[in-house]
């Protein structure tokens, strides 16, 4: 059995059925890519997996570490080892990135203000941060800034990957991390993700375009059309999409990204 098993997942938004039975097994050490056009259920998949309150689960299960995570609160899923890199990271004014990162790390470690041994020390925090910042070509100056407040598109996405690096999840979902990024930012982000690849981490990349897959090579590619997988295979699926787009499923759009200035 795989480490993270999505079985016949069905979900709706405001009464509209979006996911119509999605099954996917991810084991740590693997990189899966889910590709699809806008409106096929990509965002619903990522949000449902992480437990966004706006999405209703109509059926199916997601088993991770022996638990059906669909029954857990988002924070419990995170503490269990899941991570979602947001397509649109949320602005939270008045809280610094440093404070946020430290609070998240403490939560992940189960520090509740009492057992000091679980607390991330300032020295440890600094040390971890320094290496990751370098890989992502970021500097200290973003630490006192409020969460995602005034960040450029590239800064937001890099900050997401930084959080992932600091929190060390076992299952990471990257939701359209490449959208709106220039090529340099994609490279930095990909480099940071590739650094984290290894036997401990399973990755699910959700993307419209094949471009990010040139930098983060997937082991498996799944094509999502109208809330269902229509094709699953190895990296060759991405190559096929790159050439023919989604036309064979009656969709006109290509899988090539628009140019980002």
């Amino acid at each position, binding site marked *: 059995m795989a480490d993270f098993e999505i079985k016949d997942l069905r979900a709706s938004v405001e009464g509209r059925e979006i996911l119509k039975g999605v099954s996917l097994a991810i084991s740590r050490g693997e990189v899966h890519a889910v590709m699809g056009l806008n409106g096929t259920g990509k965002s619903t998949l990522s949000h449902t997996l*992480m*437990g*966004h*309150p*706006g999405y209703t689960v109509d059926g199916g299960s997601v088993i991770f570490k022996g638990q059906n995570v669909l029954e*857990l*609160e*988002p*924070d*419990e*899923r*995170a*503490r269990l080892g899941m*991570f*979602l890199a*947001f397509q649109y*990271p*949320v*602005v*939270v*004014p*008045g*809280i610094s990135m440093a404070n*946020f990162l430290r*609070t*998240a790390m403490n*939560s*992940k470690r189960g520090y509740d203000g009492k057992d000091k041994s679980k607390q991330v020390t300032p020295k440890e925090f600094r040390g971890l941060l320094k290496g990751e910042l370098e890989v992502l070509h970021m500097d200290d100056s973003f630490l006192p800034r*409020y*969460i995602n407040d005034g960040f450029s598109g590239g800064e937001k996405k890099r900050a997401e990957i930084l*959080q992932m690096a600091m*929190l060390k999840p076992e299952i990471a979902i990257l939701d359209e991390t490449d959208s709106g990024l220039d090529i340099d930012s994609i490279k930095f982000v990909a480099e940071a993700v590739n650094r984290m690849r290894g036997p401990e981490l399973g990755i699910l990349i959700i993307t419209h375009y094949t471009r990010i897959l040139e930098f983060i090579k997937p082991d498996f590619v799944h094509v999502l059309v109208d809330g269902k997988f229509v094709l699953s295979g190895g990296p060759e699926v991405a190559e096929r999409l790159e050439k023919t787009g989604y036309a064979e499923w009656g969709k006109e759009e290509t899988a090539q990204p628009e140019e980002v200035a």
Partner: protein
Amino acid sequence: MATVPKVEVGTDYKEKYGFFVPEEYVFKAKRGLNPEIVKEISWMKQEPEWMTNMRLRSLEIFRKKPMPKWGADLSVIDFENIFYYLKASDKQSKTWEELPPDIKATYDRLGVPEAERKFLAGVSAQYESEVVYHSLQEELTKKGVIFTDTDSALRDHPELFKEYFGTVIPPADNKFSALNTAVWSGGSFIYVPKGVRVDIPLQAYFRINAENMGQFERTLIICDEGSFVHYIEGCTAPIYSTDSLHSAVVEIIVKKNARCRYTTIQNWSTNVYNLVTKRAMAYADATMEWVDGNLGSQITMKYPSVYLMEPGAKGDVLSVAFAGKGQHQDAGGKMIHVAPNTTSTITSKSISKGGGRTSYRGHIKIYPGANNCKSFVKCDALLLDDESRSDTYPYNDVDAENVTLGHEATVSKVSDEQLFYLMSRGINRAEAETMIVNGFIEPFTKELPLEYAVELNRLIQLEMEGSVG
């Protein structure tokens, strides 16, 4: 999901910060209000005749003035069931060691000695109706700064006192300023001489600790030309079973080129009526800043104001209000532009939770001839649930030309998107909500000295803990 201990604001107040020390009074006045009680207060304090007469005159005014009906519901206050004067000990202490033990125990829990070690220039801690502890660093004395309780100031600096007392807020200003002038006791008196900068904040801790006891402290601050002072009052109070009235008057004079900042964090227990008049006069190129945080009390009505008397004067109000179950925080600010080329800003942040109600009430007045004035008002309200309420009552009177007046108001809820984002990083709901609320008031918190900022964030956390079952 993770269980969070349920703490009800109000009922668990005592465990949180409403500790209680048995009362020990030297003198205990009778309940109620009449000329005899007022005379007795004045006699006890051995005041000059002019003050006795002023008190009696003010009592008359208080009786004649109707209860204000434009704001919170005050009809439940029973003026005949209140103590108007109490004296906790019959002498003033100069050092911490000389403090009566029970009072000391109270302040130990409040952390006064520690705060003093760290950055206090002097502590003027009001226990009951009178200042009992007071210390002033030699450095301040050398500079000619007077920092004392208001009763002592009347005795020791009669000329200065009489020149300014009641000039910013005359007894007839409103019903509660009349009441305060009739029965005032305690409070702080500060005089900063010309050109003197007091670099460390001067602080006072206020506590009330007697059932049905009113507190009517009176504070008077005079910043002479080119001087600077930052005064901080912080309040916490234990809970009592019956209502309690706190009605202070704060008068501030900021002369030419001087700057005064007055910071308040009040956290009265949730049965206290907190009806306070705070006003400053700012003269040429002077700056007055009110930093005002209101967490506790059942009803607070407080609108710090600045009269901008001469060109170049600047006034700022930065306020935060938190209203939980059964609380009504009616707060805001007033800016009265009397002279041309004066500027003002009011920034109000309010949080309502568990059916609590916050109101922003503000008044911008620009007199004829006060041309080229600028004023900006920004009020943001955060509602934590559907039962809570927030209102805005802005009043603008502009009778001058070339005036820039801005007003911005927002009402928002803790957003699901923000909560989901924080929770997706492993932070539990209660902590995530607290973070969002603390982030919301951060523009206020960052203006506080570090210790107060930490304490405020902690208080918010305690207030928030009741929100998740």
